[in-house]
């Protein structure tokens, strides 16, 4: 990764400008060319430095119901419970965290009814009652990892 890669990664985390010929505009800003920037970007995507380039949707504003939930899972059953959640398409991601509430996952469903149904199925399938913590207010969303 060289200096241009770093500047491109930092700049593209902040967003492609919504102007005609956006790559030309960025190329002027970064002292490069549209072709070179896109080649660099393709390489960073191919080698896994970047996971995606495109519109970042606030998927909740386009419909659906979402929540953050947690389970207190006994260690002996941890893998089995993780497998139950892994098999559910409603579970977007799931992390182990070091706390008595040791499994934290995000659920995304088409409706509140479907979300509550998914929580009920998790309870029935695991015998554990989920802690359901839907967001009440968003103060900030903005991943930025300068390199």
């Amino acid at each position: 990764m060289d200096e241009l890669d770093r500047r491109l990664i930092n700049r593209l985390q902040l967003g492609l400008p919504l102007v005609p010929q956006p790559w030309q505009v960025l190329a002027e800003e970064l002292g490069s060319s549209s072709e070179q920037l896109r080649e660099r970007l393709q390489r960073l995507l191919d080698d896994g430095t970047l996971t995606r380039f495109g519109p970042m949707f606030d998927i909740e504003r386009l419909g659906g119901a979402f929540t953050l939930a947690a389970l207190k899972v006994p260690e002996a059953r941890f893998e089995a419970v993780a497998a139950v959640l892994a098999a559910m398409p409603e579970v977007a991601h799931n992390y182990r965290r070091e706390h008595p509430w040791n499994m934290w996952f995000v659920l995304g469903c088409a409706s509140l009814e479907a979300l509550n149904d998914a929580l009920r199925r998790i309870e029935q399938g695991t015998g554990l009652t989920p802690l359901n913590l839907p967001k009440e207010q968003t103060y900030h969303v903005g991943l930025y990892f300068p390199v």
Partner: protein
Amino acid sequence: MSACTSRSEQALALRLVELTQAGLPLVDDPWVWLAEQLQLSVEATLALLKRLQADGAIRRIAAVPNHYRLGYCCNGMTVWDVDDSQMPRLGRLIGAQPFVSHCYRRPRSGDWRYNLFAMVHGRSSAEINSYREHLRYLLGDACRADDMLVSSRILKKTGLRLPTGP
């Protein structure tokens, strides 16, 4: 989606999600490509993107780094029991810190007493501990208790997909 966004606009937005969920093609002028796919003029496509961005349906058109590959190995979900009456001011203050990637108010529930969540990322556990200390200092007496839940394993990561069907 907000009330000011019309039904036809929402249909276009959903089509845009389908077209770009896997990523925007790295062509010389991506708006020309999108305009062809959406059967709109280039000007109308750019105007649509601007409206959706102003509306918050698109946060930005951006690169998402693999933060583990970039050395950001540690993430901590800091959680805080904050005086409800001070939450509007303090939520914004905590969310505005540059090392906080996500900040939300969530309900208290049963033995779960924390109502403010702030995700912090860093290159070492010492770094995320120092961020937690900084947030504790900012919250001061308005915070009665706090904790930091460090992630030790990714069990599943597919990302949110647009839900379809009932």
